[in-house]
């Protein structure tokens, strides 16, 4: 059963993510992917994550397809204008990729090429509209034909992409984010993978809104490695708030990483009751995803 079918059949769905290397040596990435095979339902591949230049998500997703792993192609608006976005989406389809996660993309200012010119020709809401159009067999081109702007050119073969988007349920303030969330649903987002959530009660409130909009939500589970990491996230990463009680739980453990795995597993079990799946992020410690799943009994 595909990622899309699972969600449509209301089966609890688990995804994880891998990051392409900075360089051409893909062995570690593929090893991490191989470990996840059969344990998660789809694997996200990040796209120049944090605005740090890496091997492309498109090429990496294709490698996953060849390994029999279902990828979720992350695509940001930072590095591509509308021509490049559409071209990569057509390429993704042709390479057997079906799931696409649309993102605005972190600003180049926060990455490793801060002197670069970021693109942001369209935003992530537009990108969802673009996918909708490609799926209908038309592109975004606007040529003057018979003195009128054309509504796209008919494609030779349309895409069958399953579009998703991201949302930040613990954003502060939340209301502007929720406005954008519903716009993304209108623009065709069929599933959402969220920023890391730690506040269960707040997330429950968010899910009420999501249920009204009739979309699928995979809660972001970010593995905490140490109390220091939790504090760093609180201080530096927008939209992530690790509650003090979790920081204390890690501080009182002699093996903080193990405590982090336990916390993540507990969160996954809780999420089974209120949303459609989880997206596990264990940046740099991909092998721990399996420990989390074991601990959660998944």
């Amino acid at each position, binding site marked *: 059963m595909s990622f899309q079918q699972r969600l449509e059949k209301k089966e609890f769905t688990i995804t994880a993510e891998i990051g392409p290397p900075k360089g051409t040596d893909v062995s570690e990435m593929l090893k991490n992917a191989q470990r996840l095979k059969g344990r998660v339902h789809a694997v996200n591949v990040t796209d120049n994550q944090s605005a740090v230049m890496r091997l492309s998500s498109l090429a990496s997703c294709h490698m996953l397809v060849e390994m029999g792993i279902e990828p979720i192609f992350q695509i940001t*608006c*930072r590095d591509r204008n*509308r021509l490049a976005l559409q071209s990569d989406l057509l390429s993704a389809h042709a390479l057997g990729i079906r799931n696409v996660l649309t993102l*605005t*993309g*972190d*600003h180049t*200012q*926060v990455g490793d090429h801060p002197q670069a010119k*970021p693109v*942001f*020709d*369209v*935003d*992530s*809401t*537009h990108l969802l*509209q673009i996918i909708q159009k490609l799926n209908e067999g038309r592109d*975004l081109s606007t040529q003057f034909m018979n003195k009128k702007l054309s509504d796209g050119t008919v494609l030779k073969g349309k895409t069958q992409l399953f579009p998703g988007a*991201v*949302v*930040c349920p613990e*954003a*502060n*303030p939340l*209301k*502007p*984010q929720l*406005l*954008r969330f*519903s*716009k993304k649903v*209108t*623009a065709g987002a069929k599933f959402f993978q969220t*920023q890391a959530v730690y506040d269960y009660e707040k997330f429950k409130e968010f899910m009420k809104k999501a249920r009204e909009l009739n979309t699928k939500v995979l809660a972001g589970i970010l593995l905490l490695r140490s109390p220091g990491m939790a504090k760093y996230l609180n201080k530096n990463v*927008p*939209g992530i708030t690790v509650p003090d009680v979790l920081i204390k739980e890690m501080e009182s453990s002699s093996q903080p990483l193990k405590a982090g795995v336990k916390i993540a597993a507990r969160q996954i079990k809780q999420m089974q009751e209120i949303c459609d799946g989880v997206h596990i992020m264990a940046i740099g410690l991909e092998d721990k995803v399996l420990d989390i799943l074991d601990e959660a009994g998944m």
Partner: protein
Amino acid sequence: MIVAEQKEISEIINMVGDHNNILVVGCDTCVTVCLAGGAKEAAILSSALRLAYRVKGKEITVEATTIERQCEIEFVDALEPILKRKDLVISMGCGIGVQTIAERFPQLLVVPALNTKFLGLPEKQGVWVERCQACGQCVLDKTGGICPISRCSKSLLNGPCGGSQNGKCEISKDTDCGWHLIYERLKTLGRLESLEEIMPVKNWSTSRDGGPRKVIREDMCL
């Protein structure tokens, strides 16, 4: 107004090189207001250059003058009599000023003393902020008078990205999130519903992306 900032003196000295009869031209408009290239700054730069060369054991002639607007040919015309025997013009106008002088006097070498920064306003004494990117298709009616193109770091059109935190932008805690400002303004105006509609993909061809721009008013052409 156009906001500019003076280049490092070392960079200007490099431009001067072996030239020894120099005219520094200030501009009385925007760059006077932003304290970058008015009469006062032109005088200070001229002395600084003379001094820098004297230290090196070389006397150069540096004269300073200021015209009302470097961005209009008729004001630039006024420079003609004092340009005789000058081998370099250092413009303290914005990028438009430099080019207007260069276009009017194509036989002369004209170099910039300023870096032209943006279209903006003085926020408080000594602080200038950007407000317009001249995208050629104003959307301020839809966003409560706050520009998403210039105030959002990513020029997004449909609300704040995930990098917005406590009203600040992901690029810096000193930068306001443009979409947070827009949201708050529309809330105050009781017009939040206008944010529910998806703003369409932008036509960037009216911006710089369509190539160098030109406005033609045929009714005003001679």
